[in-house]
């Protein structure tokens, strides 16, 4: 994994308010190319809000976000450019139920990147092979299992050939027996050198794949460490409490 000099994501002192509620309090972080960052923390700590500000699904109220050299502002061109560099996978899959799997994957390449249909379908089939469900191409999402749907969602995000992939609790809505197949796909993606930011509770996965663990609590980054450092020797009290709860069951 070669890392270039400039970090691909720079976040400096980002704040966000929902009315009077201070959701993000001065987040600062840098992500290098090819790095896999796992974000964990109790619910309501601002993890999802944070990664959604990176691709402008939420607007940050103060601070700087710079993605691949492009500053995230109110400029529509910047927003569109940044969104085309970032792919996102949601907890609820959010596949489009009225389109087939193939149509789900080819929709954005055809209409946003303006690729011809043949080429978009070729890319789609390759991605379906990569997530190991090529035979489902003409089914509708409602006919697939949860694990299959999430893998299609990953393929759909990859179809735009993003440099960064954001995962918002990708396995939290899955039945236990299907978590492994999705994590396998994510492991393969990490090995291939993709920059990934993953919000998850899957500590086994984090330990194995992450380059860095970031612990959020109450809208702040409380602790940042390598996986081994974080799990074996958490530095702060809050991190210790959180780990005790998560690792005990």
């Amino acid at each position: 994994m070669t890392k270039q000099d400039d970090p691909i994501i720079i976040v400096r002192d980002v704040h966000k308010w929902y009315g009077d509620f201070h959701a993000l309090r001065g987040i600062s972080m840098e992500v290098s190319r090819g790095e896999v960052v796992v974000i964990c923390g109790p619910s309501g700590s601002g993890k999802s809000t944070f990664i959604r500000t990176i691709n402008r699904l939420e607007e940050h109220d103060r601070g700087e976000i710079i993605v691949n050299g492009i500053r995230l502002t109110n400029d529509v061109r910047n927003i569109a450019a940044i969104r085309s560099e970032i792919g996102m996978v949601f907890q609820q899959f959010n596949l489009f139920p009225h389109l087939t799997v193939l149509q789900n994957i080819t929709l954005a390449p055809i209409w946003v990147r303006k690729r011809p249909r043949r080429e978009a379908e070729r890319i789609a089939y390759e991605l379906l092979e990569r997530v190991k469900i090529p035979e489902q191409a003409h089914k509708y999402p409602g006919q697939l299992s949860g694990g299959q749907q999430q893998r299609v969602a990953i393929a759909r995000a990859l179809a735009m050939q993003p440099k960064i992939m954001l995962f918002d609790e990708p396995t939290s809505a899955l039945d236990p027996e299907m978590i492994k197949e999705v994590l396998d796909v994510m492991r393969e993606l990490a090995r291939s050198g993709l920059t990934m930011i993953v919000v998850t509770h899957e500590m086994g996965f984090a330990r194995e794949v992450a380059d860095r663990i970031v612990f959020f609590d109450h809208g702040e980054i409380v602790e940042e460490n390598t996986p081994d450092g974080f799990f074996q020797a958490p530095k702060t009290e809050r991190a210790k409490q959180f780990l005790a709860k998560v690792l005990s069951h």
Partner: protein
Amino acid sequence: MTTAIAPAEGAPASQVKRPVIERGVLAWLRRNLFRTPFDAALTVILVAVGGSLLAQFLEWSIAQADWTVITTNFRILMQGTYPAEQGHRLGLSVVLITLLAGVSWGIWGKLFRATAFAFVGGVLIFVLVPLAAESLADSPRGTFGGYVSGQLAPLFSLLRDPVLLLVGCLLIGYGLGRFAKQIDRKRAGRYTLIAWFISIPICFVLVRGFSDADGILPVVPTSRWGGLLLTFMLAFVAIVACFPLGILLALGRMSGGTRKLTFKAPPRWWLNPLQWLRALSIWWRNLGNYPIIKLLCIIYIEFLRGVPLVTVFFTANLIVPLALGDNSIDAVVRAMVALTLFEAAYIAEIVRGGLQALPPGQLEAAKALGLSPVQATLFITLPQALRIAIPPLVGQFITMFKDTSLVAIIGLTELLGVSRAVLAQSEFIGRHRELYVFVAIVYFVFSYGMSYAARQLERSGSGAIRKIG
């Protein structure tokens, strides 16, 4: 309340039959009509009341009713003052629409055996009664025979051809639809939808015409449309026009996000003008990213949903020609404009309900993929929202069909209005019961038929939605 009867000694269990009193007509009667003493009393009362009502109706129908008011005025009731020699154009339109309806039924619905029997039975009645009447032609008035030959037969023989045409086209279309469904269901469905979209303008052109008196399709101005024809044309035009307007209004009302800020009210907040400012600012921010558009849509929708339709008709009657600067705009066109604007507000609310039923993640996924707002709406939110909204939408279309009757209050002569004009004629004064019963049956047949179709659509639609998750 089953009572078990022990089998006779030595008889194997498989030979034990349900006791007679548990099956058959008696069992059904017991379960449905005489379950408890209270139930039995209720049954007796209902039979008495219902029976006497039915007997009164039959007695009136046979002895006192004079159905010639319908047979003599049939053309006016059906098409108003539409020229008789151009009637074939109307017939063509009816065939087109009914065929399409049949095809749609074949593709998306199911023909139950009971319905098929009902159809065949109904048609047979219309065919056999006039035939039977010929053998009873000499029966005197007042007897059942006289009634059949003098009253029912002319009416039924008049209705026989339209009914045969309708039912025939419906069933032929059904056959075509089922056949097409076997071949390629999706493409059949898509072509049928396209056919519906182009058939309504085609009907409009067929009915109205475009050339002068000697050409192929001479113009029949809207002022000559009347009766059932006018009812259908009003409804069709309004349905086709209000649908896109309603969708635009719904999108406008839903524009700009749905994050809600709550106003935490300190005690006695209304005394403090600063709190009023805070409340106002929170209300404004809650309007989202496009407050002006949202406000305009809300004002339009709430205004038109708060006033009765007759007031809109009445006002439009005066205002539309003035507003467009053209005094020659026909009353029918004014009514169409009024009905379209009015119903668009209701359609907007129904579509908005569909939009709100969508999981918000759909729009987020579309945005994350980079789709522009227009693309996201066209490809993702609207198709799904409309699919969800189909049952209440069809219900609203049926209501619109009935609402056309209100133009009678501003003097237009659709089916209800023209019946009043017919009744005003001196030879038909007092025959209001017969005419209104007939008009009620006509409305009932179409309205019930459309809601039956809507229920079938709902059943197949929800199945489809189950399939697509």
